[in-house]
C-alpha cells in the first residue's frame, strides 16, 4: 500500500483557488482512477476532481464549503500499486522541499521539521507570527481576508505587507468602504428563511462587489429600430431550424453587430492588467447565461471570425452546456467584452455591472413594437434599447457614443437584402 496525496487541481489558466462544494466520497470508500472525488467550484465554473489513482480514500482534509488554493493538499488515498512513496502533483514549494530532502536528508531531519508540519494543507493558516499580529493590530486588519503563501498556508509578514500596499490607497480614498461591505445584520423573524451564501452565488456576489467598488461606472442608452431585422428573422427562422437543428435567435445578430463595431472601436475591447490596459485584437464575447440560482458567463471566442450562423451555433452550444453544468473553465475565460441579453426577462432598461477586468458591458433589452414618428408620420416599429455600462476611468461619453451609434447603424442596416443566412 502506498499513501498518495490528493491535491486541488488547476482548473483553468487564471484559476487560483476553488471551493469544495461537495465530496462524492468519504473516508474508506474505494474509488477507481478517474472516478469523481469532489465537486469543486472556481470562479464561475463547477468542475469535478477526478481520482488520479485507484485505491481507498484514507483522509479528507478539506471541509465542504471550504475554499483552498490550487495545489493545496485536500486528502490522502491508499493505493495498492507500490510506487515511490508519496507522489506529488507539484506546487513549486513542495518541489523545493523534495529537492532538499533528497540532497540533505540529515539537514531536513533537523530543527526545521520540528515546527513545520509535513505537507501543504492549511494547518498553519491561523498560526500568526508576532510580526503578522502586530501589523494586523496596527492596521486593524481581519487576517482571514489575507491569503497566506507560507508553509501550510501560513500568512507571512510579506503577505500582510503586500495586502496593505494593495489596499491602503483604496481605504484612504473611500473611508466608508468597510462599513458599506458589512451591513448591520438583519433579524430573523418567524417564517423567514435563512439562505447561506454559498456556491456560485458567493462567487457572483464577490465579483459584483469587486466590480462595483473598483469601477466608476457610467451609463448610456440608445434606441434602435430593428423592424427590418425582425422581419428577416421571422422569415428564415423555420427553415433555419429545420436545416440546422436549433433556433436562430436575435441575440446572434446583436453579437455580430457589436463585434463589428468593436473592431472599429477597439477602445472598448480591453481588459485591465494591473496598472495597464490591454487592447485585445480578438473579440471574445462574454455572454451571460442564467441557470436557476446560478449565472454563467461563457465566452464566444474569436467572434470576429465567425458568421452569424457560426455565432448562433456557438451561443446554442454554450447555453446548452451551461444549463447542463457542462461548461469547461476554458469556456469561461478570456472574454474581452460582455453582451447581456436582458431582453429575455422582458426588461426594457437596465444598468449592467461591468465584468472585471473588462471595461464595458452592453445590455440588449426586449424588442418592443412601439409607435415611432418617421418623416412626421406615425409608424409601428420594432424598437430595442441598448444600454451600455462603461468604465469611466478609461472610457468616456464621446467614444462610447460613437460606438453605440455604430452598433445602431449596423443593426438598422440588417435586412433581407444584405443578410444571407
Amino acid at each position, binding site marked *: 500500500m502506498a499513501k498518495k496525496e490528493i491535491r486541488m487541481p488547476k482548473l483553468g489558466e487564471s484559476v487560483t483557488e476553488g471551493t469544495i462544494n461537495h465530496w462524492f466520497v468519504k473516508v474508506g470508500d474505494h474509488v477507481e482512477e478517474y472516478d469523481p472525488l469532489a465537486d469543486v467550484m472556481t470562479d464561475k465554473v463547477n468542475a469535478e476532481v477526478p481520482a488520479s489513482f485507484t485505491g481507498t480514500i484514507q483522509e479528507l482534509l478539506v471541509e465542504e464549503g471550504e475554499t483552498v488554493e490550487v495545489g493545496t493538499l485536500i486528502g490522502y488515498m491508499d493505493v495498492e500499486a507500490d510506487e515511490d512513496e508519496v507522489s506529488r502533483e507539484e506546487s513549486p*514549494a513542495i518541489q*523545493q*522541499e523534495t529537492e*532538499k530532502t533528497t*540532497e*540533505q536528508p540529515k*539537514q531536513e531531519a533537523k*530543527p*526545521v521539521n520540528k*515546527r*513545520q508540519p509535513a505537507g501543504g494543507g492549511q494547518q498553519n493558516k491561523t498560526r500568526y*507570527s*508576532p*510580526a*503578522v*499580529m*502586530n501589523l494586523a493590530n496596527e492596521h486593524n486588519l481581519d487576517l482571514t481576508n489575507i491569503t497566506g503563501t*507560507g*508553509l501550510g498556508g*501560513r500568512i*507571512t*509578514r*510579506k503577505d500582510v505587507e503586500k495586502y496593505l500596499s494593495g489596499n491602503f490607497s483604496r481605504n484612504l480614498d473611500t473611508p466608508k468602504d468597510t462599513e458599506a461591505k458589512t451591513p448591520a445584520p438583519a433579524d430573523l423573524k418567524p417564517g423567514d428563511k435563512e439562505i447561506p451564501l454559498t456556491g456560485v452565488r458567493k462567487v457572483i456576489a464577490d465579483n459584483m462587489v469587486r466590480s462595483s467598488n473598483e469601477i466608476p461606472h457610467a451609463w448610456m442608452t440608445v434606441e434602435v429600430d430593428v423592424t427590418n431585422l425582425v422581419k428577416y428573422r421571422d422569415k428564415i427562422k423555420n427553415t433555419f431550424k429545420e436545416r440546422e437543428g436549433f433556433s436562430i435567435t436575435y441575440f446572434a445578430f446583436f453579437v455580430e453587430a457589436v463585434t463589428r463595431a468593436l473592431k472599429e472601436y477597439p477602445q472598448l475591447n480591453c481588459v485591465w492588467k494591473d496598472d495597464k490596459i490591454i487592447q485585445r485584437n480578438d473579440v471574445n464575447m462574454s455572454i451571460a447565461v442564467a441557470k436557476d440560482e446560478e449565472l454563467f458567463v461563457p465566452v464566444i471566442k474569436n467572434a470576429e471570425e465567425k458568421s452569424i450562423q457560426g455565432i448562433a451555433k456557438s451561443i446554442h452550444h454554450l447555453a446548452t452546456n451551461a444549463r447542463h453544468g457542462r461548461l469547461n473553465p476554458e469556456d469561461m475565460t478570456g472574454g474581452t467584452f460582455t453582451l447581456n441579453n436582458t431582453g429575455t426577462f422582458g426588461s426594457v432598461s437596465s444598468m449592467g455591472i461591468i465584468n472585471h477586468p473588462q471595461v464595458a458591458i452592453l445590455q440588449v433589452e426586449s424588442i418592443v413594437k412601439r409607435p415611432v414618428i418617421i418623416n412626421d408620420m406615425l409608424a409601428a416599429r420594432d424598437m430595442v434599447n441598448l444600454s451600455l455600462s462603461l468604465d469611466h476611468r478609461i472610457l468616456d461619453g464621446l467614444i462610447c457614443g460613437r460606438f453605440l451609434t455604430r452598433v445602431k447603424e449596423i443593426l438598422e442596416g440588417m435586412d433581407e437584402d444584405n443578410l444571407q443566412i
Partner: protein
Amino acid sequence: MAETTYIQAITQAMREELTQDENVFVLGEDVGAKGGVFRATDGLFDEFGADRIIDTPLTESAIAGVGIGAAMYGMRPVGEMQFVDFILPAVNQIVSEAAKIRYRSNNDWHCPITIRAPYGGGVSGALYHSQSLEAMFSNQPGLKIVMPSSPYDAKGLLKAAIRDNDPVLFLEHKRAYRFLKEEIPEEEYVLPIGKAAVKREGSDVTVITYGLNVHLAEQAAANLAEDDIDVHLLDLRTVYPLDQEAIIQAASKTGKVLLVTEDNKEGSIIGEVAAIIAEHCLFELDAPVERLAGPDAPAMPYAANLEKEFMVDETKIEQSIRSLALF
C-alpha cells in the same frame, strides 16, 4: 590593480603601521626570518629588523605577557599565535590582565595590544588546527574580538586594532588566507571596530554571520537571487562587543533570521545575537530565529567526509535560507 589576498592584506596592514609608528612591533613564534607559519609577516624581518620583528620561544603565555607589559609601557605590540588552538596557555594573561588593566587601574593604565590568531577548519587541520575559540573570549568586557570577512576588511580592521588603545583579539580564518582575494585601494584606510556591515540588501530572509561564512553566505544569496529569494546579509565584523543596533535593524528588515557560525552551536557567538533579537525584535519576527552552526562535537574531525559534515558550506546556508523563505 592586482588582487590582494586576505593574508597579503594583513601583511600590508602591519607594514603600514610599522612604518608609521615606531612603537609598533611584532612578536611571535617564527614571525622573524621565517616570516610566520602562514607567512603573514613575510618580508617584515628584512624590512624592520630583529628589534621590531621578534621571534619568541614556544610559549604563548610569554607572547601575550611580554606584549601586555610592553603595551602598558607605551608600545603597540602585535602578537601572533600560530593557531588560535594554541592560545589557551595565554588566556590568563589576556583575560585577567589585558582585558582588565584599564578598569583595575581606574584608567591610569591601558593596554593597546593586538593579538592575531588564525582560526577555523576546512583545511584538514583536525583537532589542534581547526578550532573556533571566539566564544570563549566573548564575555570579557575590556576585550574586543574582530573577525574580518574579506581582504579589504582585514586590512582596514587590523590597522584599527593596532591603533586601538585597548586589547584586541584579531581572528583570521586560515582558509580565507589564500582563498579570498579582491582589489583593495592603494590609499590608506582604516575601518571602525564595533561596526557591523550590511553586505547585501534584501527583503526575504536576513542572514547574520561573520568571518569566512560571510563569503559563503554571499555565494548562497547570489544563487537564491535566481529563484527570487532576496537575502539581506549582515557581516558582524566585530563579534565582541556586538553591534546591537545593526543586528536589530537587520533582523527587523525581514523578520526571518538565519544566524551562521562555524563554531559549535551551543554557547556560540550567534546565541548572543539571537538573544539580542529576542530582546528587541519580537514584534518584527515572522519566523523562529534559526541557527546554522557546527555540531556540538568536541573537535573538527580529520577524515575529509566528516570534516565536510562538520563545516558550514554554501549549500547548507542556501538550504537553510530556502526553508526560512518558505516558512
